[in-house]
């Protein structure tokens, strides 16, 4: 297992290089110059020239990239072109917000999706199965932002049960955190629940047809033990892997939902930075997301090994 982890870390280095290079190049291809706004109304060529030199934009692109890499390697991610705040500080402010939202979302998805998947596999072809399928298709088909807006209209505006927007950390104010997180988490979780349900169902169906399930029944075990212990324990392996990967998606993919609920998260940071051509912020955020993704993939692999005795030895 340790050799796997080491191996992954070694492979991660070129991956990260490629990702950052790609984003660096794409950004510079975009039209628009962040310095134009900084130079003020007059756009004095001398001022522009001075700014270019100050930020190093007058140097060849490959040189700029290498300089950026060198600084990042030394722990300096630079500062926002717009606000002058350090990129690491911006990430440090927004990442926990999104992690909290993503955690709540994946929990909701697992709480809904996994039991529904197990139930529909065990009762395959019955009305429970059909109902679960309909619910999951609905969950997959409804656009997140639309569901978010409807929820705000009904739950916040009409019923006034929950706040429509805002954020509180679960460590500072758990009640308020729950109030502000539950709706966006449900919006994100409902779509993922559908995915999880489908995968749980097919994993369970596959396992339930295997020889060792027949052995478990031949022992006279009660159906509950056969399903929850013998079958689910084995179906869990792909489910855990999938959940981890879905969590990774949530970190970068909650953009729309964060906008709808005006949550000051990672997604909002990326979108704003892209619109403002805030090169340093975009680069830092992308690097951060890529590291998180690679880390979660590795985590999924480790979990797979831990839940699978055959892989351990």
């Amino acid at each position: 297992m340790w050799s796997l982890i080491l191996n992954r870390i070694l492979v991660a280095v070129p991956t990260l290089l490629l990702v950052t290079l790609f984003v660096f190049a794409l950004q510079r291809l975009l039209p628009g110059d962040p310095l134009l706004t900084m130079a003020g109304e007059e756009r004095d060529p001398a001022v522009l020239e001075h700014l270019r030199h100050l930020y190093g934009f007058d140097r060849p692109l490959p040189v700029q990239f290498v300089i950026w890499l060198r600084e990042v390697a030394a722990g300096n991610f630079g500062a926002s072109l717009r606000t002058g705040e350090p990129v690491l500080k911006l990430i440090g402010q927004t990442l926990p917000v999104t992690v909290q939202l993503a955690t709540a979302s994946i929990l909701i998805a697992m709480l809904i999706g996994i039991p529904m998947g197990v139930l529909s596999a065990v009762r395959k072809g019955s009305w429970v199965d059909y109902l679960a399928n309909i619910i999951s298709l609905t969950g997959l088909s409804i656009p997140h932002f639309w569901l978010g807006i409807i929820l705000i209209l009904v739950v916040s505006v009409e019923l006034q049960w929950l706040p429509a927007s805002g954020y509180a950390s679960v460590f500072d104010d758990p009640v308020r955190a729950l109030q502000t997180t539950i709706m966006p988490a449900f919006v994100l979780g409902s779509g993922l629940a559908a995915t999880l349900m489908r995968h749980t169902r097919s994993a369970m169906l596959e396992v339930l047809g295997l020889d060792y399930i027949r052995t478990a029944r031949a022992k006279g075990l009660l159906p509950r033990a056969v399903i929850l212990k013998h079958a689910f324990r084995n179906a869990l392996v792909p489910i855990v892997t999938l959940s981890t990967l879905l969590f990774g998606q949530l970190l970068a993919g909650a953009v729309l939902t964060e906008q709808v609920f005006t949550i000051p998260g990672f997604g909002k940071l990326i979108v704003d930075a892209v619109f403002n051509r805030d090169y340093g912020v975009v680069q830092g955020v992308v690097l951060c997301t890529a590291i998180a993704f690679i880390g979660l993939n590795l985590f999924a692999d480790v979990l797979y090994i831990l839940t699978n005795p055959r892989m351990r030895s």
Partner: protein
Amino acid sequence: MMAEATPLLDVESLSIRFGPSAPALVDNLSFSLKPGETLCLVGESGCGKSLTALALMGLLPTRAQPSGRARFEGRDLLTLPARQMQDLRGDRMAMIFQEPMTSLNPAFRIGDQIGESIVRHRGASRSEARKLALDMLRKVRIPAAEKRLDAYPHQLSGGMRQRIMIAVALVNEPDLLIADEPTTALDVTIQAQILALMRELQRAAGMAMILVTHDLGVVAEVADRVAVMYAGRIVETGTARDLFDDPQHPYTLGLIGSLPSLGRREGRLATIPGSVPPPDRFPAGCRFATRCPFADARCWTETPPLTGIGAAGHRAACFKAPIEANAGGLAA
């Protein structure tokens, strides 16, 4: 030995269909088993022997529709409520399967998989179950049993895994063991060891056994009585001696004729021409008629009943039996 009058298992007219209009894949099967006795169900793959075994255990797929009766210790296994069947399974009756490589759960330790059955049926504590599981591992001669208790299935060979399956099945000392081709997937040398082990444990416990096999060598080794099945029906039954010394059904004759023997080889091994027809093309009469060298018009339209011939309990389902008298020697 108990009295002849009280069989441990009494199967009467067992039929199994998949769908009401589908042909019976097991058709009107009747046999009985005394305590401690070994019955071999013999036939080629697809003849319904495994289905029969699964029906007795209540493990048929849900689409299967069994009918008839199968009385085990006074209760009909085919109509027993699910919960009572679960109480019987793994306790009074147990089963070993063909595929040791896939029959154990890869996620749990060997000791837990054996102990689970003890906890379920004996209400034993986990530590008691562990101790009993260890005893059982020693009984099935797993080397370094103590260490194996905490092993996972993938760490063991096929032969070892089948020993574990035997341990799982026998841990609650059942009255009836159903073994479905328990040695088919194993190497020949391991086969003999596993058979010998099963025989030994069976004798020690006085347990009855139904052994499903297509291997006549296995039959000769362990069977008290044999039922030869063809296309879902018993075509001949009797003691192992009856069948090997004086086979009366043309199918049994063909099976025995196709066994290689020691000594001088004379010509090619005999084979039975053709193959088993698919269920929807079974003849209306004797299902072996399509391949039988002796078949005549009556065989195609009328089902021959199992009738006694020669020794007590030796019965064959063939109009031509006894074959020497009716068919006038071997057909050309």
